[in-house]
């Protein structure tokens, strides 16, 4: 309740953690500098580009517009939580298969927005995918391959579920 550092407790990729944060510390800086989770990128730092998107309690959120101190008790999912034991997740694999990234700067945010979409809507239309990714800017790909990668992931997960 002041301007000095406070101990906060939260979950990151299902692991319980505790760390000190200054009130003015943005969640994205906290993830990168205090926790060493540098997969989440800082793009514009004012909410315009979407590169810093993480999931807070399942919802996609700009981590540059959230203070770390607000994450007390929350479940945060970052790009580091997508793969497992060095293996890529199906979504990440399809990004690779479809050449859905070039420089890769926007990719962590794209993946987390796409992940939130597929969690909520396992069978999205192309329009649904484009809406879900509208807040994530990419200056390399022209988006076409990103949309294809997400659509293919949905198809693949559907067939893996035997639907």
């Amino acid at each position, binding site marked *: *309740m002041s301007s000095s550092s406070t101990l906060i407790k939260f979950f990151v990729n299902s692991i319980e953690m505790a760390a000190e944060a200054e009130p003015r510390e943005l969640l994205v800086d906290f993830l990168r500098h205090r926790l060493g989770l540098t997969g989440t990128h800082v793009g514009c730092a004012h909410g315009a580009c979407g590169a810093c998107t993480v999931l807070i309690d399942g919802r996609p959120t700009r981590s540059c517009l959230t203070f770390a101190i607000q994450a007390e008790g929350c479940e945060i999912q970052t790009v580091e939580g997508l793969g497992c034991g060095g293996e890529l997740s199906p979504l990440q694999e399809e990004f690779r298969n479809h050449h859905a990234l070039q420089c890769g700067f926007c990719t962590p945010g794209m993946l987390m927005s796409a992940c939130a979409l597929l969690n909520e809507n396992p069978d999205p239309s192309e329009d649904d995918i484009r809406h879900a990714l509208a807040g994530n800017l990419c200056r390399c790909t022209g988006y076409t391959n990103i949309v294809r990668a997400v659509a293919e992931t949905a198809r693949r997960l559907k067939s893996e579920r035997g639907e």
Partner: protein
Amino acid sequence: MRPPIFSYFAPNAVSDVVRLLAEYGADARVLAGGQSLVPIMNLRIIRPAALIDLNRCAGLTYIEKRGDYIAIGAMTRQLDASRSAVTNEYCPIVAQALEKTGPFAVRSRATVGGTIAHADRVAELPAVAVALNAVMVVEGIQGSREIPACDFFLGDLTTSIAPGEFLREVRFPVCEPGSFSKFSEVSVRQEGVAVVGLAVYLENEDGVVTKIAISAMGVGSTPVRLHNAEASLQGNYLSPSTIEAVANLASAEVNPMADPYASAAYRKYVVASMLRTSLQEAAKGELK
């Protein structure tokens, strides 16, 4: 990039919020979803000494129908309000506007109270509030006040919320069954910042317009009601010639600014175009 040092408070009760606001006055800012406030703090455009975070405060998240209005708690997320059955049934234009406020990651965090209190000139919900004459309920140490939308928006990022007060609830009048509502906007890119927007609400009896409200955003520092256009529709049928005349009247009635996104002439053109399309839709659908 990070904001300058501030004192942070996350009160659990409205009584603590107003006590802190009384203590810090104009040096405090209230933090809701943070989608407008945090960018300008990061850019150091504003430097509040104290930040009072409403995200842990009980009793500010709800959508309820109460008689002839729906009450939305200030901390209700825009995404939740736009998907709410209550909003869609009783105030569909609120849901329509909240679908356009930004990308998913913004709407899932941004709040109904936040966008109203921030009062950006191209924010969607203030335009709807002005069209429907919504009532803003603000709370301070002295108690609460109800402010109609026509007295609430004073200018760019400026409202009649006084230092020591915060926006607690927004009340939107219920749209009549069979009424027509349409929120339209033009933006630089889909789900990006809007350039011009228009809220149209219309009631009719046997095809004759009995109630009409039109407000435009992005044509001045606050949303504006288009009184001349409204007056010319009242009591008339929505014939093609009436629609054309009203669209031209609306265009003549606004006195928009030019900025890097659009010229003043374009904004006038778009106001006419959006009104024409809305009224044609009303004539085709609701006013058979």
